[in-house]
């Protein structure tokens, strides 16, 4: 019965020209999106490698220089592009790709791609995630909106009922006929992507498990849509009504809810403006030790403390350069200030995330979007992780420079210059994004929401088809 | 008033109407009998220019229906098998709308007059069509014909699905219209009603008009016998 219905439904939809055309168009779009994505990915990674190498060469060849001048000269941390960004670009376009690491200051990532694009960019890009998240659900609606209503309209429904067909098996057949083609098209896309990625030259970070996880997430998303479309079709009186209702669900879930969520989240938990943020940081910095200011109250306090600790009565008697030591202490204070303020941003975002999760009740799109970005390592959390790693590296670099300055010169000796070959000693910045397991544990709530959607939609489908 | 000459319609290989020539004069009622697919409805559709003939001509009041579709429709009222009106509007509103869009502005009193003449009960005038039975909807259809002062009435299976009483009422309405000089062409399966209301009867088969009688010249059993013979149902009779 299940197989029979499946075969009949598949034949019916294949013989329908519209379905064939729609299917072909989706395939074509996917192919285009993947092609564009691969090119972009290679291009960006090439630039990343060049930039990283050039920057390191600049750093290594600074020549003889005071370590603190080098600290002000600074260095850059560049964000690599991860293989799965090919499938889901996530927020990559909207976050910067390079962070300037300098003394006294934590900088934000600069130069987001969106800022360098025209207003057209805001319509969205032709990327696989756009097709996976928006167009395939539309395809499901197109394939399935009249699954049940057409039987009623053609009168075949009463005939089927009089044959003693089991509702459940009948519905399963219909479900399969929607699921199998969607499964096939998605599997094809993921398979091609996987093969493409594993054939790219250095695919070091690419893992099949992540791709598979993503695939499972999208299949969950589609199953929810299939269930919703079938529920509507089994309850609606006419095909037209079923179509309009299914589309309304799509509009609400994929277009309206995310935008509304973003507005509500911003209104309820706003970020400070860039200038406000800078002003707040400055204010807190002033309340503590400034490494460059030996006359401040905090400096004097530190002086007394260090003198007491070493049991000497003049800074010149200390075994290290106190200027550099103070510089390092100031650096630590500033790092703390930044830590506090960036944590405030994170808290705000955590609050915003709650709004998004709350609205996931009306939109399975939201948890899917967040999970997909997370697995692709293109989400906001990964960006934070990268920024934090860069900040840790910045702090370590400052310590490396200040310690060298302190140990190799005497108090007041600002003219000290480190050797030309000293700079090579600084370890280079390496960033490893979180592993899949870690990502999934961080996103358990989204997984639960998606699971709840699945369970709920399945049970409603079962109940409605029973009483059809 | 209604006439066709060598009217032919082919749908691909299938010839639905094959060189059909007939004529219905003022005050006449021609009933077309025939099995499903004999070409009765296609003939009516060609008279209305719903489908264009492959060859031959259909004329209404001397005008070619294909070349002057809008002009000829001024004389025609058509009541399809299942007459559907606007369910959200009342009987009187439907009548007003269909008269109005063809440029006939009617006063409220004449609207009620036509509905009354068509035999609709007074309490139904202001009820929405969604509550109406098929018989009641047909009465509104007749009222539309009356309001239009129609010269030609085309009916497609008007009595199917009507109970005998409604069917009888409908027959009486047709007699009344015929009396006013309306030429009526009616496609039906209902031999009894055909015998009662028609002035002429024709039997169609495979798109051809194979038998034609004056209604008064034939009795009902004879009509049935001829009909079945034409349809090759001889074995049923013997």
């Amino acid at each position: 019965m299940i197989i029979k219905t499946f075969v009949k439904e598949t034949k019916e939809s294949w013989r329908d020209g519209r379905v064939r055309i729609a299917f072909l168009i989706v395939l074509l779009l996917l192919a285009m999106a993947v092609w564009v994505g691969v090119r972009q990915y290679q291009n960006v990674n090439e630039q990343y490698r060049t930039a990283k190498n050039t920057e390191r060469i600049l750093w290594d060849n600074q020549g003889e220089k005071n370590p603190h001048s080098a600290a002000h000269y600074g260095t850059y941390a560049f964000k690599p592009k991860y293989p799965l960004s090919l499938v889901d670009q996530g927020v990559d376009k909207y976050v910067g790709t390079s962070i300037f690491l300098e003394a006294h200051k934590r900088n934000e990532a600069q130069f987001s791609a969106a800022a360098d694009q025209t207003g057209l960019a805001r319509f969205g890009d032709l990327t696989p995630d756009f097709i996976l998240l928006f167009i395939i659900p539309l395809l499901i609606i197109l394939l399935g909106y009249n699954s049940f209503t057409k039987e009623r309209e053609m009168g075949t429904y009463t005939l089927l009922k009089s044959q003693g067909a089991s509702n459940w098996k009948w519905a399963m057949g219909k479900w399969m006929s929607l699921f199998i083609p969607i499964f096939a098209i998605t599997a094809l896309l993921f398979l091609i992507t996987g093969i493409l990625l594993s054939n790219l030259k250095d695919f070091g970070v690419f893992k099949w498990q992540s791709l598979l996880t993503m695939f499972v997430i999208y299949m969950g998303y589609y199953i929810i849509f299939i269930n919703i479309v079938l529920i509507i079709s089994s309850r609606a009186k006419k095909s037209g009504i079923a179509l309009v209702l299914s589309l309304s669900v799509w509009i609400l879930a994929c277009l309206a809810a995310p935008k509304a969520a973003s507005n509500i989240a911003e209104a309820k938990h706003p970020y400070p403006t860039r200038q406000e943020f800078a002003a707040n940081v400055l204010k807190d910095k002033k309340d503590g030790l400034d490494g460059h200011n030996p006359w401040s109250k905090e400096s004097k306090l530190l002086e007394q403390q260090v003198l007491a600790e070493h049991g000497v009565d003049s800074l010149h008697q200390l075994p290290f350069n106190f200027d550099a030591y103070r510089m390092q202490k100031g650096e630590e204070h500033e790092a703390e200030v930044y830590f506090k303020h960036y944590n405030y941003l994170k808290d705000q975002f955590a609050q915003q995330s709650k709004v998004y999760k709350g609205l996931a009740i009306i939109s399975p799109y939201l948890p899917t979007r967040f999970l997909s970005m997370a697995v692709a390592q293109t989400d906001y959390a990964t960006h934070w992780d990268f920024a934090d790693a860069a900040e840790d590296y910045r702090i370590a670099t400052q310590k490396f420079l200040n310690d060298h300055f302190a140990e190799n010169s005497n108090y007041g000796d600002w003219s000290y210059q480190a050797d030309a070959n000293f700079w090579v000693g600084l370890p280079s910045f390496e960033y490893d994004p979180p592993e899949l397991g870690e990502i999934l544990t961080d996103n358990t709530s989204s997984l639960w929401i998606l699971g709840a959607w699945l369970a709920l939609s399945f049970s409603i489908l079962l109940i409605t088809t029973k009483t059809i | 008033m209604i006439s066709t000459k060598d009217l032919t319609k082919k749908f691909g290989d299938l010839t639905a109407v094959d060189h059909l020539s007939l004529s219905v004069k003022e005050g006449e009622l021609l009933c077309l009998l025939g099995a499903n697919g004999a070409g009765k409805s296609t003939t009516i559709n060609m008279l209305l220019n719903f489908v264009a003939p492959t060859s031959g001509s259909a004329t209404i009041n001397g005008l070619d229906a294909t070349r002057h579709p809008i002009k000829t429709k001024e004389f025609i009222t058509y009541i399809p098998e299942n007459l559907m009106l606007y369910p959200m509007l009342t009987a009187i509103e439907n009548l007003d709308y269909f008269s109005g869009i063809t440029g006939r502005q009617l006063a409220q009193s004449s609207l009620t007059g036509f509905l009354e003449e068509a035999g609709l009960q007074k309490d139904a005038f202001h009820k929405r069509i969604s509550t109406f039975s098929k018989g009641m909807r047909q009465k509104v259809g007749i009222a539309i014909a009356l309001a239009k002062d129609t010269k030609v009435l085309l009916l497609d299976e008007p009595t199917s699905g009507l109970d005998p009483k409604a069917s009888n009422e409908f027959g009486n309405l047709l007699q009344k219209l015929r009396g006013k000089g309306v030429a009526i062409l009616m496609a039906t399966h209902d031999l009894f009603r055909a015998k009662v209301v028609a002035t002429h009867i024709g039997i169609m088969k495979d798109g051809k008009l194979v038998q034609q009688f004056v209604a008064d010249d034939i009795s009902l059993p004879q009509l049935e016998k001829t009909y079945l013979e034409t349809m090759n149902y001889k074995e049923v009779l013997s």
Partner: protein
Amino acid sequence: MLRYNFIYELRILLRSRWIQLLSLLLLLLFGFSAFNGKEKVEKRKVDIAAAKQEVLDTDQSMLKLLDSVERGMAVSASPWTIPTSPMAVANYYPRVVAMDPQPMAFVSTGQADIFTHYVKPTATGDDFALNFTEMTSPVQLLFGSFDLAFVIVYLLPLLIIAFSYNVLSSEKESGSLRLLASQPISIRKWVFQKLILRFFWLSVLVVTTLVLVILIVGIQPLEWSKVFGLLGLALSYMLFWFSLAFLVNLYVGSSAKNAVSLLGLWVVFVLLVPSVLNQLAGTLYPMPSRTLMINEMRERKVEATKRQDEILDNFLRDHPEYAINDSTQTRSFYHNYMASQKVVKEELAPIVNAYETQLKKQQSWSRQLQWTSPAIVVQESLNNLSGTSTADYENYRRQVIAFSESWREHFMSFLYNNTLFKSEDHTNLPQFQYHALGQSGVPKAILILLAMALVLLGLGFAVQGATRQKGILAD
């Protein structure tokens, strides 16, 4: 026919509760989105006002400090922040360079969520490194904003599709078409009238709800010409979609097919064409890599630092006006720094300009091709109307750079003349006033949209002959 269609269409729409449903929906959508827009604009205003107030406050304390120093009193501030030094004023007392919202800013968020609306350029800061992006969660940027432009560009067409996809096909499916088609009227004209009437009623609803919402939101100095621009855009965009619905109603067939076709067109015009154009713009006029720009910038700076003394000498020779009254010939860190910064800036100008020219090329290219999708025409025009388009932010950026140039120059003459900054100099500090772009191009956009709609409607009537030959219900 029109009179009767008018009367009865309204009755049917009222009885089937379409009008009520649409009014409610429009009120909700317009209300929510306008409220969102207004909230954003308010926040923007408050932020700018607060920043300006802060400048006023710090200016007061600066004047107090100056006063104390001038009267020879001891001050507790760090020596390099004391405002008698012109560079201290130039760096620690920057002005707020703000882009004030336009009166219609609440209509479209446009690029307003990406870019900041005020910066405080200092004399030593790099202009090209000035960060014009706003601190926003990228998730918000990704999802976009539920603003009026979103409702008009994305949702209004969907409402129109739901409202008009089955005007003819439902008559066919319910059976009333046979009676209608037997009347001496042209079905094409009848469909046209029905759709125009629906367009008329929807327009009435849209105009009333929009005006109502705008009045409630109460954007103070309402510029009515701009409100008319907004209404004109919305209505001509609606007419475009009704014309499409007209064509689809005539040529497609069953309700389901109509709905699917119209929806397909929606996906094409609203989602696909813009993203493909964007992709193409990026491929045709690729942005040079920002990461590589950083490399370049750093290399030039290293160069400049090495040649500091030489640069300063050259600079002073080239710009005698900066040091006409200087007799002391004192040279500090800043003398070197400012001179080499100027050199680096001049050297980097072509690199930085490359971004602007590429962006300009992309923009003019997409402007030329925007007629391929009315959705782009409307979105861009709404952005222009709101003063939140890419061009507006570029205009702002240019003005900021010009201002920071004049700010720097103002202090350069102090610096190289080795004169001190005094209390009376405070009133002569450069002030910034944002000048919005003049033309919005809305009338042109409306004309383009109307032309598209007319072409579609004309197409509907042009092929009339062919179907008349075949008969109305040929299929």
